[in-house]
């Protein structure tokens, strides 16, 4: 009898605890709701079954009337950048890189990362508002994925990719996705930017899928156990434009901290939040003095590709096209399990926890144009940049340098574009005939091709700005101020600890040794003469 009462009492005493528990569990959900003023699940426009991406965009535009017009002006849409100083047409539309070459004739594959629908050839309508893909950036469900060869469309029915494989690319429920749109996130931006070059981490080295949910050690800003920044926390402007383009990098932000209402409000430089003298003043103020010549990233990104995903460091197209004895495609992996040969693409090398390469950089990058002459006897730099010790706008920046071998026009001594992807027999991935693939792409782009190709080694510099480490992990002085430090290759300036003048040191030590020797002899002489006198 008593025991029953006791039990009840105990249960009653648990009620406050239980209710507290329930309350805490319910709290995050409640918070998530109050962050926005619009619940898209309640919008009439979105209560329909969408058959395609453009249909969703149509619905979006019925409220967000200016969104597509804004997107139309951006690099995300145009893949084009006219350099204000040189007038050169840059951007993905024209640049030849040393990954998959160029987008010319390969549109449907490359434009699976375009912020639009249907860019499958030169006839793409850049003025159509419904061609803008809202969902790829604003999806919050994680179910919306552009199909790799869909020219920007997601699959509308479940399809395998790679073709004929067992990996099924699921068609998203467009109504569900549309009703749950939200702000961009590391996941939405990363869907393209983490996979540049054709796969996870291939291109940048400081951007890969490990940055979707990094910890602070991997990226101090985006770490989910810390500040949990989205990409747009820094890369934000107005009207769907995004700041922080590489074509003109702000290598040194002399403006310092940006204050809303007073400043340009572009937050994509370190200085726009941290200022240009961010370190606590100690007995020496050298760290703050360094900001005029050393980019923040140089010390604060001690290594890159350190999230457990490798980045591609070498891509040799000259070995592509090999088949096994029975005529099948070859695929081999290195000791770590990373693919180091595929018939379609040639040989690769990968790296993790890589030490960046360093160079003076004023932010002005020059890209090798398709019609520009190259020296066939040397390594061709696809991009070069201005900057030196004497340039007040330049600082020492860290880079990932992508190296590889790619086809070039042996007769004209120019780079070439290559038609890799397509169902036609000119496509390299069908015929494995470089001559046809080059001719097809060059013809399509109205570029001159001599008909004779070779392979040339190229470099492509990628400035590093992500995977900023915890400050405890930042480089110390001796990483550079040492005889064989990280900056041992940079010239044109005197760096204490690394440099000295041979003659100064030689005569200096001779003087010291000379005095020691002199007084030793003098003292010895005195001792001898003293004993003689006795």
């Amino acid at each position, binding site marked *: 009898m008593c025991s029953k009462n006791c039990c009840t009492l105990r249960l009653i005493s648990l009620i406050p605890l239980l209710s507290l528990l329930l309350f805490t569990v319910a709290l995050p959900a409640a918070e998530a709701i109050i962050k926005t003023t619009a619940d898209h699940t309640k919008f009439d426009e979105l209560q329909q079954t969408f058959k395609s991406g453009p249909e969703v965009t149509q619905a979006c535009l019925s409220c967000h009337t200016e969104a597509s017009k804004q997107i139309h002006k951006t690099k995300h849409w145009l893949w084009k950048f006219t350099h204000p100083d040189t007038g050169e047409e840059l951007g993905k539309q024209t640049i030849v890189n040393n990954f998959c070459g160029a987008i010319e004739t390969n549109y449907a594959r490359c434009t699976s990362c375009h912020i639009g629908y249907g860019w499958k050839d030169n006839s793409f309508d850049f003025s159509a508002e419904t061609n803008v893909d809202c969902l790829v950036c604003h999806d919050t469900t994680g179910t919306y994925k552009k199909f790799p060869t869909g020219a920007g469309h997601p699959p509308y029915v479940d399809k395998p990719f790679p073709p004929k494989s067992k990996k099924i690319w699921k068609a998203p429920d467009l109504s569900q996705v549309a009703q749950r749109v939200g702000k961009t996130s590391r996941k939405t931006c990363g869907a393209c930017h983490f996979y540049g070059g054709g796969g996870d981490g291939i291109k940048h080295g400081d951007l890969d899928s490990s940055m979707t949910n990094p910890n602070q050690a991997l990226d101090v800003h985006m770490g989910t156990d810390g500040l949990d920044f989205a990409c747009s926390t820094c890369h934000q402007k107005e009207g769907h434009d995004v700041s922080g383009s590489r074509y003109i990098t702000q290598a040194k932000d002399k403006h310092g901290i940006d204050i809303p209402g007073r400043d340009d409000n572009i937050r994509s430089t370190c200085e726009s939040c941290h200022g240009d003298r961010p370190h606590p003043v100690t007995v020496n103020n050298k760290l703050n003095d360094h900001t005029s010549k050393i980019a923040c990233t140089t010390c604060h990104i001690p290594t890159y590709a350190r999230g457990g995903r490798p980045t591609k460091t070498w891509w040799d197209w000259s070995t592509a096209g090999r088949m096994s004895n029975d005529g099948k495609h070859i695929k081999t992996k290195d000791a770590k399990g990373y693919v180091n040969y595929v018939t379609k693409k040639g040989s690769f090398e990968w790296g993790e926890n890589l030490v960046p390469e360093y160079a003076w950089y004023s932010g002005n990058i020059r890209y090798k144009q398709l019609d520009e002459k190259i020296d066939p006897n040397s390594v061709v730099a696809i991009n070069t940049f201005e900057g030196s010790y004497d340039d007040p706008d330049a600082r020492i920046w860290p880079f990932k340098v992508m190296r590889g071998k790619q086809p070039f026009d042996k007769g004209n001594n120019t780079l070439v574009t290559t038609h890799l992807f397509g169902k036609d027999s000119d496509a390299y991935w069908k015929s494995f005939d470089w001559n046809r693939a080059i001719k097809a792409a060059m013809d399509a782009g109205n570029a001159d091709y001599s008909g004779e190709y070779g392979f040339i080694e190229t470099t492509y510099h990628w400035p590093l700005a992500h995977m900023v480490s915890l400050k405890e992990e930042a480089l110390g002085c001796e990483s550079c*101020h040492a005889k064989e430090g990280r900056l041992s290759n940079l010239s044109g*300036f005197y760096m204490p600890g690394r440099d000295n003048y041979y003659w100064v040191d030689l005569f*200096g*030590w001779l003087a010291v040794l000379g005095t*020691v020797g002199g007084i030793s002899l003098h003292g010895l002489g005195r001792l001898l003469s003293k004993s003689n006198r006795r």
Partner: protein
Amino acid sequence: MSQIYYFSLFERFWHWSQAILIFGMLITGFEIHGTYQLLGYEQAINLHTLLAWVLIGLWLLALFWHTTTGEWRQYLPSDADSMMSMVKYYLVGIFLGAPHPFHRKRAEKHNPMQRMAYLILTMIISPIIWVSGILYLFYQYWPLIGMSSASLGLVAAVHTIGAFAILSFIPIHLYLTLTTSEEPFGYLREMIVGHESKRG
């Protein structure tokens, strides 16, 4: 009979604190120069900078003391003849047991060569180090004083040459002060307690 205090309490304090500071600056300075690794570059820089400020403070104090007491006259150059006799003594006489050519007084406590050596040290070598060192430290602000096109390497070289001069001075100084006194380590005793042990 009262003993002659050649070195006042302040001078002894000045001498020994300066000695410690200079040794510290040499040790950290040559690490910064890249000659060896000991404390780590950042620690070396921190200590070198800190010691520099302390040394500058000490110098200002010493400058004040020397001007107000008139002791700066101890460092005025002697006439050429007495200088030459000192040189001769160190080159010849000292080996033959000749008597010391210089007769020490309270108002002239340093022999002619000492006076010259300390004058060169304080008026030539030290200023070279101070000026080059301060320029080195405030490298960032050169454009403000119109030095934007000057070479850090040149300043560093001058600073290093000064450091080698000091480093060369130390063995000579130690040798002469420790081995040439009448009683063993008499000068060392003087610099510690201020006076000789007994009247000569």
